[in-house]
């Protein structure tokens, strides 16, 4: 079943010990922000039902190639039902240099269940490989076998998977492993990393299961090696060696968030399950107590954010995670955090909306709710990573910002980023986060009264917490004066509204954080792409293609969404003949934000497919805007 295998996977993902630094702020940190796709670049898709071990095969493949030194980006698609025989697809793009997104076309498609796979044959490129069972059980009507659906130009490989499995292991429970071995052999991948991963993955099930799976893998591998191979299915050897002391690990976005939290020394977590955010809490439920922290599953999302605010008030680094429906419920309490100036971190992994919507599909439609989902002038910080490493970074930085600016911080992910796996390089030095909570520790002079909201140069007031000697004060959701006493005079409300607004501007200069970043051509360009969140990977791919076609083009990612780095974006707009804003929602929420702030027109590219933005759609728009069509 999807559920159980996903949990099992979570437990066995190899991980370095916490406290290890991830190298470089963003993998795309080169000055030009871009590199050629030299070396290997192959995408493998495995399709079947959860009962076929589809996701498990993808998981082994992902980990083995990472161990072998390749870079991976991968994303699994699950059925929406609990019941475990719906269609699963695991797609992996394996490269020498880290890629930014999956490719639209796969190079290899492995079928573990032809009926599920048939509709996907079209995604294999010309001269790509389509691999299926040579000897299906029972009689298949015409058209039910995959081979009948392979397109001209695609290369069919068929293999007696079941037979090999039975021969090697005495049963057919290892069909997925046999087939995986075949793919590995066909692609000339080294065998050893696979065997290591198989061993660790099946350790709990004992030596017999390990041996069986190893034998199955071996049988498949051999068959693969012996097959006549087309050149372009081969892998080049990994181009880059790891930094000394560095360690490569594979994480998905949610795991990276959990790791970021732990490395930033989260001490309390309160949450309520909801797809696709649940795995953040699940990971922390295991890990946080190991680090001496406390996690509580609350009765709902309102209590979760309320407890985070209560814990933040008491000086704890605290967070919660949720998706759109939970975020909608948190609006009122987040507003309290804003006015009472309490730090809080909320990880929101978006899914298809509105309402319950499409819980197992991705979307970027909760930006409005993140920015504006509380009543009143309730400014807060909103940041959105664009890749898995960014999830780690943003998670840790969110705590810094929440405490430094004394405000709720929302970190916006989406299902595509939460569940997408990428190789991440870890260095051996400490975590790149400031651990100082920046609370007030000054002793009061005799007779001095502590002023919680005293006005200062940067509009941030020194914060005392319960237990601090003599600093007793009351915080409140009512408008108040410097002491925290209710005060609704015109002057006080104008002043305190200003304080809450101004202090957040500091976040635009928050140190060691990439607020925005431009890639591609420098200076004047024909087309600029302005994007946020998980979709930025597809934008980069499209930009690279457009440049290859001779279009002057660059792309800017905006990680800091509130407060918005207006100056940087305006400068970018000044450089661009036209500006394209691709995002996964219907009305163009980010475009609306940018236009609203800058009063400058951008071109919206909005799609709600439930999956990633098609690179082709971005490219088509770039061409159109550059007048090349």
């Amino acid at each position, binding site marked *: 079943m999807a559920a159980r295998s996903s949990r099992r996977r979570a437990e066995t993902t190899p991980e370095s010990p916490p406290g290890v630094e991830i190298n470089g702020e963003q993998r795309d940190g080169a000055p030009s922000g871009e590199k050629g796709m030299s070396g290997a670049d192959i995408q493998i898709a495995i399709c079947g039902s959860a009962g076929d071990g589809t996701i498990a095969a993808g998981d082994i493949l992902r980990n083995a190639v990472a161990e072998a030194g390749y870079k991976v980006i991968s994303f699994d698609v699950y059925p929406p039902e609990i019941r475990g025989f719906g269609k699963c697809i695991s797609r992996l793009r394996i490269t020498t240099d880290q890629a930014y997104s999956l490719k639209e076309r796969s190079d290899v498609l492995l079928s573990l269940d032809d009926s599920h796979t048939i509709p996907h044959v079209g995604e294999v490129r010309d001269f790509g490989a389509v691999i299926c069972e040579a000897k299906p059980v029972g009689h298949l009507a015409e058209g039910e076998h995959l081979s009948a659906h392979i397109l001209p130009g695609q290369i069919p490989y068929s293999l007696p998977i079941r037979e090999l499995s039975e021969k090697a292991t005495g049963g057919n429970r290892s069909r997925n492993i046999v087939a995986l071995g075949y793919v590995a052999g066909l692609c000339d991948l080294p065998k050893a990393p696979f065997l290591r991963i198989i061993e660790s993955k099946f350790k709990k099930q004992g030596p017999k299961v390990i041996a069986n799976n190893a034998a199955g893998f071996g049988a498949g591998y051999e068959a693969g090696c012996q097959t006549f191979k087309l050149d372009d299915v081969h892998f080049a050897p990994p181009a880059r060696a790891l930094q000394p002391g560095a360690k490569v690990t594979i994480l998905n976005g949610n795991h990276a968030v959990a790791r970021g939290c732990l490395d930033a020394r989260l001490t309390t977590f309160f949450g309520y399950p909801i797809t696709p955010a649940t795995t953040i809490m699940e990971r922390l439920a295991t890990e946080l107590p190991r680090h001496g922290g406390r996690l509580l599953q609350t009765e709902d999302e*309102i209590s979760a954010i309320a407890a985070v605010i209560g814990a933040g*008030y008491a000086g704890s680094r605290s967070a919660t995670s949720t998706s759109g429906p939970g975020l909608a419920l948190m609006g009122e309490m987040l507003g309290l955090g804003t006015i009472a100036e309490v730090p809080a971190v909320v990880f929101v992994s978006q899914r298809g909306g509105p309402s319950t919507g499409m819980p197992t599909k991705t979307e970027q439609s909760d930006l409005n709710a993140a920015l504006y989902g509380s009543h009143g002038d309730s400014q807060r910080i909103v940041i959105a990573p664009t890749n898995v490493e960014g999830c780690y970074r943003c998670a840790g930085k969110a705590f810094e910002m929440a405490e430094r600016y004394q405000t709720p911080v929302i970190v916006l992910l989406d299902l595509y980023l939460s569940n997408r796996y990428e190789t991440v390089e870890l260095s051996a030095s400490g975590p790149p986060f400031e651990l100082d909570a920046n609370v007030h520790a000054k002793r009061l002079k005799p007779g001095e009264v502590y002023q919680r909201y005293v006005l200062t140069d940067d509009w941030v007031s020194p914060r005392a917490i319960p237990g601090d000697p003599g600093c007793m004060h009351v915080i409140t959701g009512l408008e108040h004066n410097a002491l925290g006493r209710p005060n609704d005079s015109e002057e006080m409300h104008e002043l305190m509204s200003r304080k809450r607004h101004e202090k957040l501007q500091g976040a635009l200069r928050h140190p060691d954080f990439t607020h925005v970043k431009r890639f591609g051509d420098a200076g004047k360009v024909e087309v600029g792409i302005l994007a946020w969140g998980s979709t930025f990977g597809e934008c980069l791919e499209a930009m690279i293609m457009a440049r290859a076609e001779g279009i002057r083009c660059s792309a800017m990612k905006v990680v800091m969404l509130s407060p918005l780095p207006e100056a940087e974006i305006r400068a970018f707009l000044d450089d661009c003949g036209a500006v394209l804003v691709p995002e996964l929602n219907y009305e163009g929420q980010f475009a609306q934000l940018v236009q609203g702030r800058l009063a400058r027109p951008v071109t919206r590219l909005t799609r709600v497919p439930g999956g990633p933005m098609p690179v082709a759609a971005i490219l088509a728009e770039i061409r159109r805007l550059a007048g090349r069509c």
Partner: protein
Amino acid sequence: MLMEKPVYVDEKLREVLSSGRLEYRSKALPTWCPGCGYFAIVEGVTAALNDMKIPMDQAVVLSGIGCSSRFPFFVNTYGFHTLHGRVLPVATGTKVANESLMVIAVGGDGDGFAIGGGHLSHAAKRNVDITYLLFDNGVYGLTKGQTSPLSAQGFKTTTSPYENPDQPLNPLMMMLSYGASWVGQAYAGRPDHLKEMIAQAIAHRGFSYLHILSPCVTFDKTNKTYVNLGMIVRDLPPNHDPTHRMVAMAQAEQADAPALGLFYQESRPTLGDNLNSLIAKAGGDASAKPDRRKGE
């Protein structure tokens, strides 16, 4: 207990001034209507804190929204005036963050049993080690007199102008059914007993629920008045056994003759104990608190 012996004003004043409990009062003057029962509660809490010698900077008083919830502004401790209905989850977060704080949550009947009703059972069941003082005036005071879930049947208010047709909830039975580990009732018109109960509730290790009957002199002239309550409250029977939940339930069922005193008490691990034991199982160190203070 029913009859307080009369005191002379200056005698009382001398007692108050020398008691030390005024230190637990903040400088803010309560915004309540003259005669509101809540004055007695602030008296009771400050007196109890003083008697128990609880350091003011180790105490946090949190509240929701309502007349009652203005409470934190009037005591000289740390305080958090949160949102309507949300005092329990916020207080839970505060307590989980720092077990060593003494945490009191206060709120009105609407705050606790209407909008906040979903949190009651969970705070009780988890046995969060906090004290919850519920001020029951049977009406929405701050919003000027609407029906509350604890309003009497037949009560006319601005939102039930023809009459409240609904039977009120029974808060004590509810808290008992949730597994609250300390359940008691007091009355603002009996200040000495009230103070005594507050002190007991605070002393209890685990979730203590103290239901405090209190008149709203402005919006309720019929039900929970001093006169009315004075006539119908009674003491729990002298042989009441607070270790038997069903006995407590039976007493709580007689909602129209409210009994004062400790209904039920049990001792079981608190949420804090449980979270610590999870840390132990995971091999973590519960006492390891990262020092996150900037030096001066």
